[in-house]
């Protein structure tokens, strides 16, 4: 296994799937000549040419629709959103079209489409460039939603997303592109969609966290292990929709205490879903109400000190874990 970055893992997944299937192509802003705003598609234009790596003008609604149309007639497009914040411009295409055409057509037209790019907080990019968008998409029947945490997840899940026959919203993270980790080189390495991973075994509390929040939860887990001898199990859903209810409930039944950490603003978000689902399904297994931690209820500020306060910190997670165990 090679140790590569999250960015390289995505790049390899794209390269391998494009080699494997000529119907797969990449379209988006700056994916070709520029090599990708975040360099995820670096080298692909050189390797696959302009036919399969298509630079587009700025028109998210237009080129997302292009992906949907191409998918309707048998291709397997990958649409890159330079950042997911811009997917708001294309939300009608995604929600009213990509997610519904299979259903409205009575099953005649599957939409094998991947829409991918970074989402969530970055580095002082302020309100219009730092949104955690997953909850918008999780709410929509017909979409699958993936949020890879490690380089390994990034590669295995992107490859599965590309091979999936449904529209998949694949949200990466600007803050994780540089993270390194072991990744299988095998071109058939896949991580199935809808399967969570217990990334850290523990006895006392289950922390459910994905993407950047996973890393903060891990730091917190190590701290409370040392300081309070609290053993934290960390479950990474990896795919948010469909959600792996089994793995989550198994951990809950083991620890009886749950914390859900989310970088977004929380209200009516994915954390709310996980918390209410667990409570419905394992009420009697819970020794304490499921605790939710999420970002401050505000847009993302620019100032560095405020930005730090906006997203849940290791400290906040540590406190929440202690509170949970004090119950």
């Amino acid at each position, binding site marked *: 296994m090679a140790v590569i970055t999250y960015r390289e893992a995505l790049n390899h997944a794209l390269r391998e799937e494009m080699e494997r299937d000529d119907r797969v*192509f990449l*379209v988006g802003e700056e994916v070709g000549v520029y090599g990708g705003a975040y360099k995820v598609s670096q080298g692909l234009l050189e390797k696959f040419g302009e*036919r399969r790596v*298509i630079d*587009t*003008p700025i*028109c998210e*609604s*237009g*080129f*997302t*629709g*292009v*992906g*949907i*149309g*191409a*998918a*309707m*007639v*048998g*291709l397997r*497009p990958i649409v890159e959103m330079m950042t997911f914040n811009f997917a708001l411009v294309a939300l*009608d*295409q995604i929600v*009213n*079209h990509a997610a519904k*055409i*299979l*259903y*409205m*057509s*009575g*099953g*005649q*037209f*599957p*939409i*094998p489409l991947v829409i991918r790019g970074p989402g969530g907080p970055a580095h002082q990019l302020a309100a219009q460039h730092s949104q955690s968008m997953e909850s918008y998409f999780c709410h929509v*029947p*017909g979409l*699958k939603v993936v949020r890879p945490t490690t380089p390994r997840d990034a590669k295995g899940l992107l490859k599965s997303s590309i091979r999936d*026959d*449904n529209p998949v919203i694949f949200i990466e993270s600007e803050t994780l592109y540089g993270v390194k980790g072991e990744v299988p080189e095998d071109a058939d390495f896949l991580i199935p969609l809808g399967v969570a991973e217990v990334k850290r075994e523990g006895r006392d509390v289950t922390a459910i966290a994905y993407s950047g929040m996973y890393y903060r939860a891990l730091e917190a887990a190590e701290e409370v292990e040392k300081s309070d001898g609290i053993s934290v199990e960390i479950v990474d859903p990896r795919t948010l929709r469909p959600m792996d209810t089994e793995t989550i409930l198994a951990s809950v039944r083991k620890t009886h205490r749950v914390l859900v950490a989310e970088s977004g603003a929380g209200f009516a978000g994915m954390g709310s879903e996980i918390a209410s689902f667990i409570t419905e399904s394992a009420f009697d297994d819970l020794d304490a109400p499921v605790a939710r931690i999420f970002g401050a209820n505000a847009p993302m500020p620019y100032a560095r000190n405020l930005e730090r306060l906006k997203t849940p910190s290791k400290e906040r997670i540590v406190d929440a874990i202690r509170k949970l165990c004090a119950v």
Partner: protein
Amino acid sequence: MATRGSAAAAKGRVEPAVGLALLEQMQLIRRFEEKAAEMYALGKIGGFLHLYIGQEAVAVGAMAALRSDDYAIAGYREHGHILAKGGDPRRVMAELFGRRDGVSKGKGGSMHMFDRSINFLGGHAIVGGYLPIATGVGVAIRYEDRDRVILCFFGDGSVPQGEFHESMNLAALWKLPVVFICENNRYAMGTAIQRALAQTDVSKYADAYGMPGEACDGMDVLAVRESVGRAVARARDSKAPTLIEARTYRFRGHSMRDPAAAVYRTKDEVEEEKQRDPIVSFRERLRQAGALDEAAWSALAERVEARVNDAVAFADASPEPPAEWLTADVYA
């Protein structure tokens, strides 16, 4: 427009057999829609119902320029388009009835007719929303280096929508085999085109993209077939898009919920436009050309009547979709 019309008509020579086929298709759509209106009144059809009455020459003339492996996509006023593309009236009526034998299994309804077997890509109800999708089909045709074409039908109401501009630009920039056909019936619901567009000659918007643009008489099936024929040839041979403005008129209200359709236009205007009825005028032209006598017409009309009644009988007999279908087809 009248002059354009007769000009096109003058040009429009047609072999009798072909002419009769076009007339029969238009008549089928006309009677299908009139029947649908009856069925709506009887409560057999629900939701919105947007009739194509008055615009038949556009879908019929345009589809006549296609090969069967070409694609077509349209909005929510698409009964005429799917029938002209070769859709089965029985399954189209069954869809309106919300029955399991409908083209979309009863799950799409009037606004969402899809038929993969004839490359009919819907049936979409977000104004402007499917223009980028048509553009994507053009991208796929080029990607696979085929010589197919896609016709994208939309109303004048899509023109002010941003996706019209995005799609026109992408199709022209990437040289895609997409024929954009704006059915300009001069109203978007209750909004007259001059209240919606700063510049109302829709075909002129093509200039901004260096794309060929052409207006034709949408009440003249041969004129439409000619314009679209030129555009299809361009698309097939040189992968170049075209914007066609078919000038037409909607004889009925926007939908069955707008029966009067008189708040925003005068009865006189409607009556005057009805003088341009695409079926009456084409029928007359065939008669004058000696291609259609009374007997032939009544035979044609009877065939159509029979098909429409058969469609209703079929739809009536088709069962409701089973409950399990509610959650089927959400994911592939």
